[in-house]
Protein backbone atom coordinates (compact mmCIF):
# COMPACT_ATOMS: atom_id res chain seq x y z
CA UNK A 1 0.00 0.00 0.00
CA UNK A 2 1.15 3.51 -0.73
CA UNK A 3 2.29 5.27 2.41
CA UNK A 4 0.37 8.44 3.23
CA UNK A 5 2.14 11.70 2.46
CA UNK A 6 0.63 14.47 4.61
CA UNK A 7 2.46 17.33 2.85
CA UNK A 8 1.30 16.19 -0.56
CA UNK A 9 -2.23 15.73 0.78
CA UNK A 10 -2.42 19.14 2.44
CA UNK A 11 -1.08 20.91 -0.63
CA UNK A 12 -3.34 18.97 -2.98
CA UNK A 13 -6.41 19.66 -0.84
CA UNK A 14 -5.55 23.37 -0.81
CA UNK A 15 -5.27 23.41 -4.59
CA UNK A 16 -8.48 21.42 -5.11
CA UNK A 17 -10.40 23.81 -2.87
CA UNK A 18 -8.85 26.70 -4.80
CA UNK A 19 -10.36 25.32 -7.99
CA UNK A 20 -8.04 22.64 -9.39
CA UNK A 21 -10.71 20.03 -8.97
CA UNK A 22 -9.12 17.44 -11.26
CA UNK A 23 -6.38 16.95 -8.65
CA UNK A 24 -8.89 15.05 -6.54
CA UNK A 25 -8.13 11.97 -8.66
CA UNK A 26 -4.54 11.96 -7.37
CA UNK A 27 -5.62 12.63 -3.81
CA UNK A 28 -8.05 9.73 -3.57
CA UNK A 29 -6.01 7.18 -5.54
CA UNK A 30 -3.88 5.91 -2.60
CA UNK A 31 -7.07 5.38 -0.57
CA UNK A 32 -8.88 3.26 -3.14
CA UNK A 33 -7.77 -0.11 -1.86
CA UNK A 34 -8.51 0.44 1.83
CA UNK A 35 -11.87 2.05 1.01
CA UNK A 36 -12.91 -0.90 -1.11
CA UNK A 37 -11.73 -3.61 1.24
CA UNK A 38 -13.23 -1.96 4.29
CA UNK A 39 -16.56 -1.76 2.47
CA UNK A 40 -16.21 -5.28 1.15
CA UNK A 41 -15.67 -6.44 4.69
CA UNK A 42 -18.84 -4.69 5.83
CA UNK A 43 -21.08 -5.41 2.87
CA UNK A 44 -19.88 -8.80 1.63
CA UNK A 45 -20.84 -8.03 -1.91
CA UNK A 46 -18.49 -6.88 -4.64
CA UNK A 47 -20.96 -4.79 -6.60
CA UNK A 48 -22.37 -3.14 -3.49
CA UNK A 49 -18.88 -2.46 -2.11
CA UNK A 50 -17.84 -0.89 -5.40
CA UNK A 51 -20.92 1.29 -5.52
CA UNK A 52 -20.40 2.32 -1.90
CA UNK A 53 -16.73 3.05 -2.65
CA UNK A 54 -17.77 5.41 -5.43
CA UNK A 55 -20.29 7.14 -3.17
CA UNK A 56 -17.61 7.41 -0.49
CA UNK A 57 -15.17 9.06 -2.89
CA UNK A 58 -17.84 11.57 -3.90
CA UNK A 59 -18.71 12.32 -0.29
CA UNK A 60 -15.04 12.85 0.46
CA UNK A 61 -14.86 15.31 -2.41
CA UNK A 62 -18.01 17.17 -1.39
CA UNK A 63 -16.84 17.40 2.25
CA UNK A 64 -13.22 18.14 1.55
CA UNK A 65 -13.47 21.64 2.98
CA UNK A 66 -14.41 20.06 6.33
CA UNK A 67 -11.20 18.05 6.60
CA UNK A 68 -9.35 19.63 9.51
CA UNK A 69 -6.05 17.86 9.24
CA UNK A 70 -6.15 16.75 12.87
CA UNK A 71 -6.20 13.13 11.70
CA UNK A 72 -4.55 11.56 8.70
CA UNK A 73 -6.43 12.13 5.49
CA UNK A 74 -6.76 8.38 4.90
CA UNK A 75 -8.19 7.88 8.40
CA UNK A 76 -10.79 10.54 7.73
CA UNK A 77 -11.62 8.97 4.37
CA UNK A 78 -12.02 5.54 5.94
CA UNK A 79 -14.36 6.85 8.61
CA UNK A 80 -16.52 8.23 5.79
CA UNK A 81 -16.32 4.83 4.06
CA UNK A 82 -17.31 3.08 7.27
CA UNK A 83 -20.30 5.37 7.76
CA UNK A 84 -21.32 4.75 4.17
CA UNK A 85 -21.12 0.99 4.69
CA UNK A 86 -22.96 1.07 8.03
CA UNK A 87 -25.63 3.34 6.57
CA UNK A 88 -26.25 0.87 3.77
CA UNK A 89 -26.46 -2.03 6.22
CA UNK A 90 -28.93 -0.13 8.37
CA UNK A 91 -31.04 0.74 5.37
CA UNK A 92 -31.10 -2.88 4.28
CA UNK A 93 -31.86 -3.95 7.86
CA UNK A 94 -29.00 -6.39 7.74
CA UNK A 95 -26.78 -5.09 10.48
CA UNK A 96 -25.31 -8.27 11.78
CA UNK A 97 -25.35 -8.98 15.44
CA UNK A 98 -21.82 -10.21 15.69
CA UNK A 99 -20.69 -6.68 16.50
CA UNK A 100 -22.08 -7.39 19.96
CA UNK A 101 -19.02 -9.47 20.53
CA UNK A 102 -17.21 -6.20 21.08
CA UNK A 103 -18.47 -6.45 24.64
CA UNK A 104 -16.17 -9.35 25.25
CA UNK A 105 -13.00 -7.52 24.29
CA UNK A 106 -11.81 -7.25 27.86
CA UNK A 107 -11.49 -10.94 28.46
CA UNK A 108 -8.25 -12.27 27.11
CA UNK A 109 -9.80 -15.57 26.13
CA UNK A 110 -7.85 -18.77 25.84
CA UNK A 111 -7.36 -20.23 22.49
CA UNK A 112 -5.76 -23.39 21.35
CA UNK A 113 -3.69 -22.93 18.25
CA UNK A 114 -3.16 -25.48 15.55
CA UNK A 115 0.05 -27.20 16.41
CA UNK A 116 2.21 -28.61 13.71
CA UNK A 117 5.91 -28.36 13.58
CA UNK A 118 6.56 -29.36 10.00
CA UNK A 119 5.31 -26.16 8.45
CA UNK A 120 7.85 -23.39 8.84
CA UNK A 121 8.36 -21.99 5.37
CA UNK A 122 6.12 -19.30 3.96
CA UNK A 123 4.74 -20.65 0.69
CA UNK A 124 4.84 -17.27 -1.04
CA UNK A 125 5.58 -18.79 -4.43
CA UNK A 126 2.39 -20.84 -4.09
CA UNK A 127 0.42 -17.58 -4.15
CA UNK A 128 0.81 -17.79 -7.91
CA UNK A 129 -1.77 -20.50 -7.61
CA UNK A 130 -5.24 -19.10 -7.33
CA UNK A 131 -6.14 -21.91 -4.96
CA UNK A 132 -4.05 -20.49 -2.11
CA UNK A 133 -5.38 -16.95 -2.53
CA UNK A 134 -8.92 -18.31 -2.48
CA UNK A 135 -8.18 -20.25 0.70
CA UNK A 136 -6.87 -17.12 2.45
CA UNK A 137 -9.76 -14.93 1.30
CA UNK A 138 -12.29 -17.51 2.43
CA UNK A 139 -10.68 -17.78 5.86
CA UNK A 140 -10.76 -14.00 6.33
CA UNK A 141 -14.28 -13.79 5.02
CA UNK A 142 -15.29 -16.37 7.60
CA UNK A 143 -14.08 -14.25 10.53
CA UNK A 144 -16.65 -12.38 12.64
CA UNK A 145 -17.02 -8.85 11.30
CA UNK A 146 -15.29 -7.13 14.23
CA UNK A 147 -12.17 -9.22 13.66
CA UNK A 148 -12.30 -9.08 9.90
CA UNK A 149 -12.27 -5.27 9.81
CA UNK A 150 -9.21 -5.14 11.99
CA UNK A 151 -7.28 -7.76 9.99
CA UNK A 152 -8.17 -5.92 6.84
CA UNK A 153 -6.82 -2.61 7.97
CA UNK A 154 -3.89 -3.81 10.08
CA UNK A 155 -2.56 -6.84 8.24
CA UNK A 156 -3.81 -6.38 4.71
CA UNK A 157 -3.66 -2.61 4.33
CA UNK A 158 -0.86 -2.40 6.90
CA UNK A 159 -2.23 0.59 8.77
CA UNK A 160 -0.92 1.25 12.27
CA UNK A 161 -2.87 0.59 15.46
CA UNK A 162 -3.84 4.23 16.00
CA UNK A 163 -5.11 4.78 12.47
CA UNK A 164 -7.04 1.50 12.53
CA UNK A 165 -8.66 2.49 15.83
CA UNK A 166 -9.68 5.89 14.46
CA UNK A 167 -11.01 4.47 11.20
CA UNK A 168 -13.12 1.86 12.99
CA UNK A 169 -14.17 4.07 15.89
CA UNK A 170 -12.76 1.70 18.54
CA UNK A 171 -9.97 1.98 21.09
CA UNK A 172 -6.37 1.05 20.36
CA UNK A 173 -6.67 -1.65 23.02
CA UNK A 174 -9.63 -3.16 21.19
CA UNK A 175 -7.64 -3.14 17.94
CA UNK A 176 -4.85 -5.13 19.57
CA UNK A 177 -7.16 -7.64 21.26
CA UNK A 178 -9.19 -8.18 18.11
CA UNK A 179 -6.11 -8.51 15.95
CA UNK A 180 -4.70 -11.09 18.31
CA UNK A 181 -7.92 -13.09 18.24
CA UNK A 182 -8.25 -12.77 14.49
CA UNK A 183 -4.73 -13.98 13.87
CA UNK A 184 -5.27 -16.85 16.30
CA UNK A 185 -8.45 -17.88 14.49
CA UNK A 186 -6.71 -17.62 11.13
CA UNK A 187 -3.73 -19.61 12.35
CA UNK A 188 -5.98 -22.35 13.66
CA UNK A 189 -8.01 -22.43 10.49
CA UNK A 190 -5.21 -22.04 7.98
CA UNK A 191 -2.09 -23.65 9.40
CA UNK A 192 -3.23 -27.24 8.89
CA UNK A 193 -4.30 -26.50 5.34
CA UNK A 194 -1.41 -24.26 4.35
CA UNK A 195 1.03 -26.92 5.29
CA UNK A 196 0.26 -28.61 2.01
CA UNK A 197 1.49 -25.53 0.11
CA UNK A 198 4.83 -25.35 1.88
CA UNK A 199 8.04 -26.39 0.19
CA UNK A 200 8.56 -30.00 1.23
CA UNK A 201 11.72 -30.61 3.17
CA UNK A 202 10.99 -33.02 5.96
CA UNK A 203 7.93 -35.14 5.58
CA UNK A 204 5.74 -36.52 8.32
CA UNK A 205 7.25 -34.70 11.25
CA UNK A 206 4.10 -32.99 12.39
CA UNK A 207 2.93 -32.87 15.97
CA UNK A 208 -0.81 -32.81 16.10
CA UNK A 209 -1.94 -31.99 19.56
CA UNK A 210 -5.53 -30.96 19.31
CA UNK A 211 -6.73 -31.75 15.88
CA UNK A 212 -6.61 -34.54 13.41
CA UNK A 213 -5.38 -34.29 9.87
Amino acid sequence: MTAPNPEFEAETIRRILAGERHLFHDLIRPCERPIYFLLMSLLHNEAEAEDAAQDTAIKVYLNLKNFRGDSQFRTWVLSIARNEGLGRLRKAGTRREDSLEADTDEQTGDYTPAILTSWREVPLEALEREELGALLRKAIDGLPEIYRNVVLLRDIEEMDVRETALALGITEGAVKVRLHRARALLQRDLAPRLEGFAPQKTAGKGLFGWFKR
Partner: protein
Amino acid sequence: MRIDCKHVWQYISAYIDGEVDAELRAEIDRHLETCEICSAVLDSTRNVVVLVADERVFELPTGFSQRLHARLDQELEPTGSS
Protein backbone atom coordinates in the same frame (compact mmCIF):
# COMPACT_ATOMS: atom_id res chain seq x y z
CA MET B 1 9.80 -16.78 36.29
CA ARG B 2 9.05 -19.57 33.84
CA ILE B 3 6.16 -18.87 31.53
CA ASP B 4 4.03 -21.63 30.12
CA CYS B 5 2.78 -22.28 26.58
CA LYS B 6 -0.67 -20.74 27.07
CA HIS B 7 0.97 -17.61 28.37
CA VAL B 8 3.14 -17.42 25.26
CA TRP B 9 0.15 -17.90 22.95
CA GLN B 10 -1.57 -14.94 24.55
CA TYR B 11 1.27 -12.70 23.50
CA ILE B 12 1.99 -14.15 20.05
CA SER B 13 0.36 -11.31 18.16
CA ALA B 14 1.95 -8.58 20.26
CA TYR B 15 5.29 -10.40 19.96
CA ILE B 16 5.04 -10.44 16.16
CA ASP B 17 4.25 -6.72 16.17
CA GLY B 18 7.15 -5.95 18.52
CA GLU B 19 4.75 -4.71 21.18
CA VAL B 20 5.92 -6.70 24.19
CA ASP B 21 8.35 -5.11 26.60
CA ALA B 22 11.97 -6.21 26.73
CA GLU B 23 11.54 -8.35 29.83
CA LEU B 24 8.58 -10.31 28.49
CA ARG B 25 10.25 -10.65 25.10
CA ALA B 26 13.30 -12.18 26.76
CA GLU B 27 11.09 -14.65 28.65
CA ILE B 28 9.23 -15.60 25.52
CA ASP B 29 12.51 -16.00 23.63
CA ARG B 30 13.83 -18.27 26.36
CA HIS B 31 10.66 -20.34 26.20
CA LEU B 32 10.83 -20.56 22.41
CA GLU B 33 14.36 -21.89 22.51
CA THR B 34 13.22 -25.04 24.21
CA CYS B 35 9.58 -25.35 23.15
CA GLU B 36 9.16 -26.67 19.65
CA ILE B 37 5.38 -26.38 19.86
CA CYS B 38 5.36 -22.67 20.68
CA SER B 39 8.00 -21.83 18.14
CA ALA B 40 5.90 -23.67 15.52
CA VAL B 41 2.80 -21.74 16.58
CA LEU B 42 4.77 -18.49 16.34
CA ASP B 43 6.13 -19.37 12.89
CA SER B 44 2.80 -20.43 11.48
CA THR B 45 1.04 -17.35 12.87
CA ARG B 46 3.74 -15.13 11.40
CA ASN B 47 3.43 -16.97 8.08
CA VAL B 48 -0.31 -16.36 8.03
CA VAL B 49 0.31 -12.65 8.66
CA VAL B 50 2.85 -12.52 5.82
CA LEU B 51 0.56 -14.38 3.43
CA VAL B 52 -2.58 -12.30 3.96
CA ALA B 53 -0.52 -9.12 3.50
CA ASP B 54 0.59 -10.21 0.04
CA GLU B 55 -1.16 -8.01 -2.48
CA ARG B 56 -1.81 -10.95 -4.77
CA VAL B 57 -4.31 -12.27 -2.23
CA PHE B 58 -6.58 -9.25 -2.17
CA GLU B 59 -6.90 -7.52 -5.50
CA LEU B 60 -9.31 -4.82 -6.52
CA PRO B 61 -11.91 -6.00 -9.05
CA THR B 62 -10.84 -5.54 -12.67
CA GLY B 63 -11.70 -2.05 -13.86
CA PHE B 64 -12.56 -0.81 -10.35
CA SER B 65 -10.24 2.17 -10.53
CA GLN B 66 -11.28 3.21 -14.03
CA ARG B 67 -14.97 3.10 -13.10
CA LEU B 68 -14.35 5.04 -9.89
CA HIS B 69 -12.49 7.80 -11.69
CA ALA B 70 -15.04 7.95 -14.49
CA ARG B 71 -17.76 8.47 -11.87
CA LEU B 72 -15.62 11.11 -10.18
CA ASP B 73 -15.17 12.89 -13.50
CA GLN B 74 -18.94 13.26 -13.72
CA GLU B 75 -18.95 14.73 -10.24
CA LEU B 76 -15.94 16.98 -10.65
CA GLU B 77 -17.13 18.54 -13.86
CA PRO B 78 -20.86 18.84 -13.46
CA THR B 79 -22.77 20.01 -16.47
CA GLY B 80 -25.66 22.27 -15.78
CA SER B 81 -25.68 21.92 -12.00
CA SER B 82 -25.29 24.93 -9.77
